[in-house]
C-alpha cells in the first residue's frame, strides 16, 4: 500500500469527522472563490473600458445614474435634456465627435425598456454608402468653400461675376438637397443640417457676389462647413455597443425613422416569445412583467427586426425611432402633471363613453392611410400638454401620412434623455466634458471612468470585507482540521506504533499526518472552488437579470488559484501540530499497552 492509500483508509475510518472538516474547508474556499471571481469580473464588467462610446451627454445630476441608465439600462432616466444639445454636438462640437446618437427613454413593455434613437444605430451597407457620400460632400465642400472665404485666395470682394466659385457653390447646394434626403432615412437631423448648409451656401453665393463684408463672407462660409461637417458627425459610425461589434440582425431589418416600428434585443425576443410582425402597446414608466398596463399608450409598435445577442444590456431593450417617441403626447415636458389630470379625467368619464374622433392608424397597417387632417384642426393641438381635458390628446402630437409619422410637436419642445458619443480622441472627449462643465443644463461623462470610480469606492471596499470574512472562515477551517486530527491521534497511538513496528520512520509518520491534513484541505479546496464558481454563476445570473450583463464565472485566475493553494498549505500546516504529536509517539509503550 502506498502512502495515499493508507491516508485515504485512515480518513474513511473517521468519515463523519473527515466530511465535516472537508465541508468547513470547502465553505471558506467557496466564499473566497466566489468573492474573488465576482470582484474580478465585477471590476471588468463595471470598470470596463470596452464601451463602444466614450461619452454620455445627459442632464446634470448623478453621473453614476446617467451611466447606469444608459449602459446597463437600470433605473429611470434622471431627467431630460433639450434636443438642442444634440444639435449643438452636431455643429459646435462636431470636430470632437466621431459618431453620436440621441437616446430617449420613458416607456416600457412587459418590464423591457423602450429606447428611442435613430435608425443609424443599425449598421447597414446602405448606411455605409450614405456615410461615404456625406464624407465626399464634406471634402468637396471644403475644397470649394475654404478657398472662397480665404483672403489669400480670394483677395477681392465682391468676386468677379465669372468667378468659378459661384457656379461651384450653386452645384454644391443642389447636391446638399439630395444628400439631405438620403441621410434623413438614417437620422432626420442630417437632412436639417444639409438644409442649413444649403441655406448658408446660398447666403455665401449672395455675399460673394455682392458684398465687400469679409467677416460676413467668412461667417457664411464657416456656417456651410459646420453644417456639412455636422451632417458628417451625425452619420459617423459604425455605432457599436462594444468596440468592433456593431448591432447585427438575427432577423428582419432596422426600423424606419418615421414609423411605429421597433427592433427587439435578442433577450426580449426570446423571453417574450415575440417574432417579426408582432405588435404591442407600450406603457409609460416601468411596467411589470406579464401584467397588462392600464396606462398603455394607444400607439402600436410593430416588430420589424430582432438583433443578434450583443452580450450587453442592449439585449434587454426594445429600440424604437425617436420620431415615434416624440409622437406620443405623454412624452412632453408636463408629463407628470398631465398624467395626474388624465387619471382624474378618466375617472370622470367612466360613465360616458365617447369614441375617438381620429384614432391613429397602426403602423403595421399603413393602408388605407388616413387623409391629412386639416391644419386648423391641429394648430391648436401643437402643444399637447395644453389638452389635459381632451380625451383624444393621444392623437394630436402627430398625424400619419401614408403610414409615416408627421410630427406636430415643435422642435423646441423635443426632449431626450441623453446622447451617446464616440469622440475622435481622448483629448476630444476631455474637451467635450470640459465644455459641458460650463453649461447649466447638461453634462458629459466618461462611462468607463465613472464605473472605475464606482468599483473602486463601492465594489472593492465591500468585497475586501467579504474576503476578510472568507479568510477567517478558512482559518477556522484550518483550526478544525487541527482539532479533528489532533483528537484522532489520541485514539490512533497504537496504530501509529504498529506502523512504526512495521518499519515506518518517525518522518514517515509525520508525513502521513501532514498529508492527511493536506488531503482534507485539497478535497475541501476542490469542492470549495466548484461551489464558489456555482455561487459566482448565481451572482452572474442575478446580475444578468438585473442589468442585462452577466460575467464569466467559469474563469479562474491567479487570485483564486493562489487562495486554493493557500488553503491546502494552511491545511498541511494545521496538520503539523498533530503530526508532531504522532511523531513523538512511543512505539514500545503503545504496543504493550492493552
Amino acid at each position, binding site marked *: *500500500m*502506498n502512502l495515499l492509500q*493508507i491516508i485515504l*483508509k*485512515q480518513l*474513511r*475510518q473517521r468519515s463523519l469527522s473527515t466530511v465535516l472538516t472537508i465541508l468547513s474547508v470547502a465553505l471558506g474556499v467557496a466564499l473566497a472563490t466566489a468573492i474573488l471571481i465576482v470582484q474580478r469580473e465585477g471590476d471588468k464588467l463595471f470598470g470596463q473600458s470596452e464601451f463602444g462610446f466614450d461619452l454620455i451627454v445627459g442632464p446634470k445630476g448623478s453621473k453614476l445614474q446617467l451611466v447606469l441608465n444608459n449602459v446597463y439600462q437600470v433605473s429611470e432616466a434622471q431627467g431630460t435634456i433639450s434636443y438642442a444639445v444634440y444639435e449643438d454636438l452636431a455643429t459646435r462640437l462636431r470636430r470632437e465627435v466621431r459618431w453620436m446618437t440621441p437616446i430617449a427613454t420613458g416607456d416600457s413593455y412587459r418590464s423591457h425598456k423602450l429606447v428611442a434613437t435613430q435608425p443609424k444605430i443599425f449598421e447597414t451597407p446602405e448606411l455605409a454608402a450614405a456615410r461615404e457620400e456625406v464624407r465626399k460632400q464634406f471634402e468637396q465642400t471644403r475644397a470649394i468653400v475654404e478657398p472662397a472665404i480665404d483672403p489669400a485666395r480670394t483677395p477681392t470682394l465682391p468676386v468677379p461675376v465669372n468667378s468659378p466659385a459661384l457656379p461651384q457653390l450653386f452645384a454644391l447646394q443642389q447636391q446638399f438637397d439630395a444628400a439631405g434626403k438620403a441621410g434623413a432615412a438614417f437620422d432626420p437631423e442630417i437632412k436639417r443640417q444639409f438644409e442649413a448648409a444649403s441655406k448658408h451656401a446660398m447666403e455665401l453665393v449672395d455675399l460673394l457676389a455682392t458684398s465687400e463684408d469679409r467677416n460676413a463672407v467668412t461667417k457664411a462660409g464657416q456656417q456651410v462647413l459646420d453644417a456639412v461637417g455636422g451632417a458628417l458627425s451625425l452619420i459617423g459610425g459604425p455605432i457599436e455597443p462594444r468596440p468592433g461589434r456593431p448591432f447585427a440582425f438575427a432577423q428582419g431589418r432596422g426600423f424606419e425613422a418615421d414609423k411605429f416600428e421597433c427592433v427587439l434585443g435578442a433577450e426580449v425576443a426570446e423571453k417574450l416569445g415575440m417574432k417579426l410582425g408582432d405588435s404591442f402597446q407600450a406603457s409609460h414608466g416601468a411596467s411589470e412583467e406579464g401584467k397588462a398596463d392600464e396606462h398603455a399608450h394607444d400607439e402600436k409598435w410593430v416588430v420589424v427586426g430582432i438583433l443578434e445577442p450583443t452580450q450587453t444590456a442592449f439585449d434587454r431593450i426594445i429600440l424604437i425611432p425617436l420620431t415615434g417617441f416624440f409622437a406620443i403626447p405623454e412624452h412632453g415636458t408636463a408629463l407628470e402633471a398631465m398624467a395626474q389630470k388624465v387619471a382624474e379625467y378618466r375617472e370622470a368619464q367612466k360613465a360616458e363613453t365617447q369614441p375617438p374622433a381620429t384614432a391613429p392608424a397602426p403602423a403595421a397597417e399603413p393602408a388605407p392611410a388616413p387623409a391629412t387632417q386639416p391644419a386648423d384642426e391641429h394648430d391648436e393641438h401643437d402643444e399637447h400638454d395644453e389638452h389635459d381635458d381632451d380625451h383624444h390628446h393621444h392623437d394630436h402630437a402627430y398625424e400619419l401620412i401614408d403610414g409615416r409619422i408627421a410630427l406636430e410637436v415643435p422642435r423646441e419642445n423635443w426632449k431626450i434623455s441623453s446622447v451617446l458619443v464616440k469622440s475622435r480622441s481622448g483629448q476630444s472627449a476631455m474637451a467635450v466634458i470640459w465644455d459641458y462643465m460650463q453649461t447649466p443644463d447638461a453634462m458629459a461623462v466618461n462611462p468607463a471612468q465613472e464605473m472605475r470610480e464606482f468599483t473602486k469606492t463601492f465594489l472593492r471596499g465591500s468585497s475586501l470585507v467579504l474576503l476578510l470574512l472568507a479568510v477567517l472562515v478558512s482559518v477556522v477551517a484550518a483550526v478544525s482540521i487541527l482539532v479533528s486530527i489532533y483528537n484522532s491521534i489520541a485514539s490512533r497511538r*497504537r*496504530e501509529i506504533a*504498529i*506502523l*512504526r*513496528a*512495521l*518499519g*515506518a*520512520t*518517525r*518522518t*514517515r509518520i509525520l508525513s502521513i499526518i501532514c498529508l492527511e491534513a493536506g488531503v482534507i484541505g485539497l478535497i475541501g479546496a476542490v469542492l470549495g472552488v466548484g461551489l464558489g464558481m456555482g455561487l459566482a454563476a448565481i451572482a452572474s445570473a442575478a446580475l444578468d437579470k438585473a442589468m442585462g450583463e452577466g460575467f464569466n464565472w467559469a474563469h479562474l485566475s491567479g487570485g483564486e488559484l493562489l487562495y486554493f493553494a493557500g488553503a491546502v498549505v494552511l491545511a498541511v500546516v494545521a496538520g503539523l501540530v498533530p503530526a508532531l504529536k504522532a511523531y513523538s509517539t512511543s*512505539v*514500545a509503550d503503545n*504496543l*504493550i499497552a*492493552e
Partner: protein
Amino acid sequence: MALSIQQLLKTYDSPDGGSVTVLNVEQFHIADGEHVALLGGSGTGKTTLLHTIAGIVTPDSGSIAFSWDGISTELTSLSEAVRDVFRGQNLGYIFQTHHLLPGFTAMENVLLGMSFTGRKADRAWAKHLLEEVGLGSRLNYQPAKLSVGQQQRVAVARALASRPRLVLADEPTGALDPNNAQQVLDLIRKLCTEVGASLLMVSHDHDIAKQLPRVVDLKELNRT
C-alpha cells in the same frame, strides 16, 4: 540471518529515583535459519528483549549484530531512522495480540507489512500468504469480522509479507486455544522455512516452546 547478542544491558528509571535492570544478557546467538524458543514467564523481560532486538527499544549498552550473506550489521550503531528501515526490510514481528489495523481488510493489513520495505507491493505474495494461513476466502474481511485465531493468522501473514530474514514472535499463541495455538505455531514455522527466515519465539508455554529445535530458558539468559 544470524543474530549475535553480546553484553546487552537495559535499565529503566524507577519511580523511587533509582534504576531497574530489565535486560542483562551476556551472550546469545541464533544461527542463520535456526528456530529458537525463549521460554519464560511474565516479568522475565522477554518483550523488552524482542523490542531491543527489533530496534524499537535502545539498549544502554551491548551489541546486537545481524549477519547474512557475508554482510553484518551492528544494530546499536544505527540511527533510529535507519533502524526503522532495517526493521521494515529484514525483520518480521508477531505480537501476542494481533495488532491489526481495524479499518484495513486482511489483504490490506498484509500489504501494509510490505509498505515500508522500499520494495513494490506484491499482491500475489500477500494472497499466497493468506491462502497459506487458510484465509484465501476472507481476503477482504476486516479484522472485526474474523475470529481471534483468524486475526492471529493474518498477523502471521503480515509478519512474513516483507520476506524477512528474522521473525520475532512475542507469545504468538498466548491468546489462542490449544487447537488454534498449534495451528498458528505450525504456520509460523512453515512460512519461516518457506522464506528462509530465522525464528525467535518467546513463550511461557512449555509445550509450545519445546516444539522448536532449541529452547532457551530466559531466566538463565537474562541475569537481572
